[in-house]
């Protein structure tokens, strides 16, 4: 975009400038500030108005990078409008000044047009290069005031600081500064200002100052520019006060006026301009192949862990706390089951939750359980399972890193519980990975470098969010007992949310296998490189294809050993793994799995319906080595005793002291359906349910009586516990979703069309006339907003129609003071007090004739 071309006459308003911008620029504006699109503005005036609202400007300013922000800050302390050269001077400082790095100055000079272009693209700055204007709201936001010092450390201008001074005192100062007296305060201020801005004259003035005065100035020059003085200032302070180099603010305080500070700073608005993003320095180059393998190994571990979690919760997971989430004890238990620490376990849980694999079952005593989707997930090939997890993680706004920390109200945040959503998370995650992705393959950088870069990209966003989450944070240090490490991490742990999310993201990316030893893995690149509008399925396929060859292929054999262990020297095919898990206990996991056969585990296998011969042949078939004698012996020995005691499942029984009667029933063909079995002369066991048995026997002409459930043997197989169909939690993004190209094009077309309609000259129709007396004024909402804002600027009064919450309509005369967030705060002449009105309840506005306002 660059500087404005001279073909258009210099625009008078932002709307006018926007009108002259090409459609592509409008699209870019709407893309970077999607909040302007909701609802689609009807014309450019409305778009410009909306772009100037405080909420929207704050949002846009927060998204500026450090240098663009510094440029905006410089503009805020520059005269309005500001020529480009003045701005450049503020950013680079005086040409001849010593103490500034000429390379830095060149960098600032080189990067400034880009920063300005970025501000223009965001519609924060408008106007041609000789008349740059910062949008008024942004200027208010960034201009220093007594309550909110500017990040530049500059104070108010001489004119602002001297506003309340008596003309006499002003003349004294002018005289003390060695200037001729002037006719009035305005000219006095102007004379003083131009003295301070004149480098040579100012230098000459300050040369006479006592040394202590210089010390005072040195303290104030880079801000904060305010200092306290006593009623009887010391001579060196008095010297400065007399010459207006310090101006009084209230009774006790003084301020260094902006012009004087700029002189002392050699014209620089910022002490350290940051034109270039911090380099991702001290990169370690690792073998990309090794990185990919490590990441794939970790990806495999991630899959195994999630799989294990699902198995662990297969029969129903832990209960849901009343306030939502998992209790600390259940989290610890899960961590133990997954053989990991609490923080890592929370991450796996949140990951499974985000991927829609686990959820609460929604029953009366709510518990967590795998979802039906988990079943489908488990059937997928490993690489696709991983892609699902990775995609869910990238998009999730829930942050596992917060688990265990306290929120602003001191409540501990539970895993899977509420209040874990942090809107910036997906953006930060992608950004962190994209930063790593921008490096050559296999390159790892220290996390501090990544954090520094992120801070540069969003300097305000981090700081603004720092306070609400300042709760003590145990850090997301690795779970192993490296106490020293943890202490180290805690020491360096940043407090702002974005940095914390970035740290978590780096750690979690490693856990999930998106990165390997700190470098981005090849398969992750495929996942991240997807174009924003492209079908994600395509990228997912590419990722899966890249990952698949790196994952270990499942084995179909184990090694059996005489110490009653079986070692699977790699991942096993699922049926084999399932069978072994039944027959033996898992002793150690990792790349390989060690199973141990015990009498108990063999019994479990027999219980599951396998015979000893069956087990022997199964082991022989899947073992690379002969089945050791002690193992064969163990199986036979357990089988020998297995089943000596017999336990059967019966749904109901028939008891009768007369065995002849039971003989009769057994002989009756009609009883076949009841599947009766004689256990003892006087007892029959039935597979039919008690009520069915009762019915059946009654139908056969007997008169059975039901017995109480006491003594009844019901062996119910525990059923897998599933939630009803559940959708994964929808991410909660910050602000409206990024608009796609189609929407943007349509929106720009609509705005243009609306604008054409609004700005076309037409004959005044009858509606345009003032409303009939007694009727409420009617205007469109855009007009209402524009008129009210204009009135707030000009301090003029308006006549409005207003419908209150009960639906009662009234007419009021108000003088708007502030228009913000859909409300207008105004002095209500009708009620004679300051009130706030929602804009949407105002039916219309009409400007008052000048004489009526008084």
């Amino acid at each position, binding site marked *: 975009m660059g500087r404005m071309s001279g073909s258009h006459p210099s625009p008078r308003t932002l709307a006018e400038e926007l009108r002259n911008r090409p459609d592509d620029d409008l699209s870019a504006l709407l893309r970077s500030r999607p909040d302007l699109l909701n609802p689609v503005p009807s014309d450019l005036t409305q778009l410009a108005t909306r772009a100037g609202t405080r909420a929207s400007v704050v949002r846009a300013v927060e998204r500026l990078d450090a240098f663009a922000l510094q440029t905006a800050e410089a503009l805020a302390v520059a005269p309005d409008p500001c020529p480009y050269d003045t701005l450049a001077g503020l950013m680079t400082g005086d040409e001849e000044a010593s103490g500034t790095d000429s390379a830095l100055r060149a960098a600032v000079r080189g990067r400034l047009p880009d920063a300005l272009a970025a501000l223009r693209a965001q519609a924060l700055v408008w106007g041609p290069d000789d008349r740059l204007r910062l949008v008024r709201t942004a200027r208010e936001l960034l201009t220093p005031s007594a309550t909110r010092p500017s990040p530049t450390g500059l104070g108010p201008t001489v004119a602002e600081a001297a506003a309340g001074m008596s003309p006499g005192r002003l003349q004294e100062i002018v005289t003390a500064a060695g200037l001729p007296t002037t006719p009035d305060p305005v000219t006095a201020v102007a004379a003083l200002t131009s003295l301070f801005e004149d480098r040579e004259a100012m230098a000459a003035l300050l040369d006479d100052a006592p040394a202590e005065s210089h010390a005072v100035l040195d303290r104030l020059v880079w801000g904060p520019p305010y200092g306290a003085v006593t009623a009887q200032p010391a001579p060196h302070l008095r010297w400065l006060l007399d010459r207006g180099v310090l101006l009084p603010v209230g009774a006790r305080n003084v301020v260094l006026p902006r012009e004087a500070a700029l002189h002392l700073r050699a014209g620089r608005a910022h002490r350290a301009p940051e034109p270039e993003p911090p380099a991702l320095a001290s990169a370690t180059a690792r073998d990309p192949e090794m990185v990919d393998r490590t990441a794939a190994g*970790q990806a495999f571990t991630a899959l195994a862990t999630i799989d294990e979690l699902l198995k662990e919760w297969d029969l129903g997971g832990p209960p849901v706390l009343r306030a939502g989430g998992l209790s600390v004890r259940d989290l610890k238990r899960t961590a133990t089951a997954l053989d990991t620490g609490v923080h890592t376990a929370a991450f796996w849980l949140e990951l499974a939750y985000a991927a829609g694999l686990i959820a609460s079952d929604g029953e009366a005593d709510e518990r967590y359980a795998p979802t039906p989707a988990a079943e489908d997930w488990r059937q997928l090939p490993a690489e696709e399972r991983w892609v699902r997890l990775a995609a869910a993680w990238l998009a999730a706004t829930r942050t596992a890193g917060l688990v265990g920390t306290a929120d602003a109200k001191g409540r501990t945040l539970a895993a899977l519980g509420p209040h874990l959503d942090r809107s910036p998370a997906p953006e930060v995650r992608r950004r962190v990975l994209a930063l790593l992705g921008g490096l050559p393959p296999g390159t790892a950088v220290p996390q501090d470098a990544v954090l520094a870069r992120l801070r540069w990209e969003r300097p305000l966003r981090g700081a603004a969010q720092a306070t609400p989450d300042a709760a003590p944070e145990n850090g997301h240090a690795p779970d192993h007992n490296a106490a020293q490490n943890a202490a180290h991490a805690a020491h360096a742990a940043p407090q702002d949310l974005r940095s914390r999310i970035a740290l978590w993201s780096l750690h979690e990316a490693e856990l999930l296998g998106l990165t390997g030893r700190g470098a981005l893995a090849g398969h992750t690149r495929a996942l991240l490189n997807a174009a924003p509008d492209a079908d994600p399925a395509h990228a997912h396929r590419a990722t899966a294809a890249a990952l698949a060859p790196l994952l270990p292929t499942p084995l179909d054999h184990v090694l059996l050993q005489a*110490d009653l262990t079986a070692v699977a020297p790699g991942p096993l095919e699922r049926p084999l793994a399932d069978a072994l898990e039944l027959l033996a206990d898992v002793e*150690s996991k*990792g790349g390989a799995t060690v199973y141990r056969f015990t009498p108990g585990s063999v019994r479990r296998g027999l219980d599951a319906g396998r015979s000893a011969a069956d087990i022997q042949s199964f082991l022989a078939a899947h073992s690379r080595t002969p089945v050791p004698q002690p193992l064969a012996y163990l199986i036979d020995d357990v089988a020998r005793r297995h089943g000596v005691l017999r336990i059967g499942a019966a749904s109901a029984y028939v008891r009768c002291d007369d065995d002849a009667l039971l003989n009769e029933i057994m002989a009756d063909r009609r009883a076949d359906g009841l599947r009766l079995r004689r256990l003892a002369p006087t007892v029959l066991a039935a597979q039919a349910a008690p009520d069915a048995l009762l019915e059946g026997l009654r139908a056969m002409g007997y008169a059975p009586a039901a017995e109480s459930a006491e003594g009844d043997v019901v062996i119910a197989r525990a059923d897998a516990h599933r939630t009803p169909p559940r959708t994964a939690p929808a991410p909660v993004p910050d602000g409206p979703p990024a608009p796609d190209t189609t929407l943007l094009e349509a929106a720009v077309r609509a705005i243009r069309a609306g604008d054409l309609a609004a700005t076309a000259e037409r004959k005044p129709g009858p509606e345009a006339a003032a409303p009939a007396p007694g009727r409420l004024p009617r205007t469109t909402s855009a007009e209402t907003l524009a008129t009210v804002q204009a009135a707030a600027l000009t301090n003029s009064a308006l006549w409005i129609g207003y419908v209150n919450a009960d639906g009662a309509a009234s007419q009021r005369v108000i003088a708007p003071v502030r228009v913000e967030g859909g409300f207008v705060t105004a002095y209500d002449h009708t009620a004679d007090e300051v009130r706030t009105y929602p804009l949407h309840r105002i039916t219309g506005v009409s400007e008052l004739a000048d004489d009526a306002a008084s």
Partner: protein
Amino acid sequence: MNGPLIVQSDKTLLLEVDHEQADACRQVIAPFAELERAPEHIHTYRVTPLGLWNARAAGHDAEQVVDALVAYSRYPVPHALLVDIAETMSRYGRLTLSKHPAHGLVLTTTDRPVLEEILRSKKVQPLVGARIDPDTVAVHPSERGQIKQTLLKLGWPAEDLAGYVDGEAHPIELAEDGWSLRPYQQQAVENFWHGGSGVVVLPCGAGKTLVGAGAMAEAKATTLILVTNTVSARQWKHELVKRTSLTEDEIGEYSGTKKEIRPVTIATYQVLTTKRKGVYPHLELFDSRDWGLVVYDEVHLLPAPVFKFTADLQARRRLGLTATLVREDGRESDVFSLIGPKRFDAPWKEIEAQGYIAPADCVEVRVNLTDSERLAYATAESDEKYRFCATTASKQRVTEALVRRHAGEQTLVIGQYIDQLDELGEHLDAPVIKGDTSNAQREKLFNAFREGELSVLVVSKVANFSIDLPEATVAIQVSGTFGSRQEEAQRLGRVLRPKADGHEARFYSVVARDTIDQDFAAHRQRFLAEQGYAYRIVDAHELLADEGA
């Protein structure tokens, strides 16, 4: 990427022994990983902080360890594990104990925060003196052992560079006439001597006494040898007289019966730990001479009080000898900090492969109890259950049958319960050695057994330790100290000494089926199996049927 090693998340390492690189891999991981199990196909090593510190003490650095893992691993090694290893290893050596010309013993650090951290500990405060400079603090020489123990517990093991006193010199030479130290013994002596102090791990029957003798010949100084019991003490004396230039008169025995203190003194743990009126009256033994070397036999049995005394002996060279670092009481860390790191280790199977110990055939004989015995067992009090099933008449019969089967071979019957042994002795017409058998009688019987005059000997657990019965080819275990793995190893050791005719040794365990006896046996045998001694299980009735045929 097809190495022989698989790194597990619980820090165990699985080594596939049939892999072509298995030997090379074993070489590089042995310094830092403890061999835990060595069954036939996959050996399990465990990486522990102690193991890593052992490696650091032996001069290996984290880089080597990580390289070894990465180079031989079949799958990517979890990054967290590598970080953890580097972190753990870097903890060793940040604190060093050394001699200061002016202040005596000092603790120095290369990392000031660590020193601050440990000085803050309540346990360390009483052990240290004045702060000499920001990185150095004085330590009272008498607390040298204590502070090492404490620092290890805090996770910051100190490297002891304070050196040793030479002790009173005494000429000792190995008398290598017609024999010489085996290569691994030589290696063990060298490793120990260069390390200063430490533990040598060798399987039973691999000649640990000779390693002790070798160390003494290096030290050439007065030596205190601590052994488990009197018989063992005599054994040491006998062996030293035979293998070194020492004469009978130079070697003293300090036990319940004799209190000789000579240039080389052999004392029993028993006498040292005897307590009278709350004091240990025999402690002065440690100070009675200026010992240049202290040898601890069977370190894994070292009683707790001896650790305490040892803490005060840190200026003297210490050699620990043992078959296994596994202690049933889990005080491995005290062995590390007070006696020293592991200096040499050779797995059982390897020495067997070199032909220095005999191969063994381990057989578990399962005995069916009779119905009445089963009923009695089921109704026995729970604390009597083991005793009951371990001493059933059915077992006696099977044991007797086994002895008959191996008639003519040197057979040891080992048991726990005296009345069972007495009964067996009576039935087998064999002498019984138990706790109340006098030492003279014991030695007489052992000699007779050695000479072949006796072919069957029934022994109680007094024979567990350090007696040398070279010609025993069959051992029959009828009962044991519950599930003690270390006892099993000792007993197996009885038959592992090389036989003159290369005959295969047999080790029988007679076990009552379906009882707690079987569970204990399983626990003990797991150790055997993990050492690579595959055992067979045989039903008693099959065995007896064979006999009948």
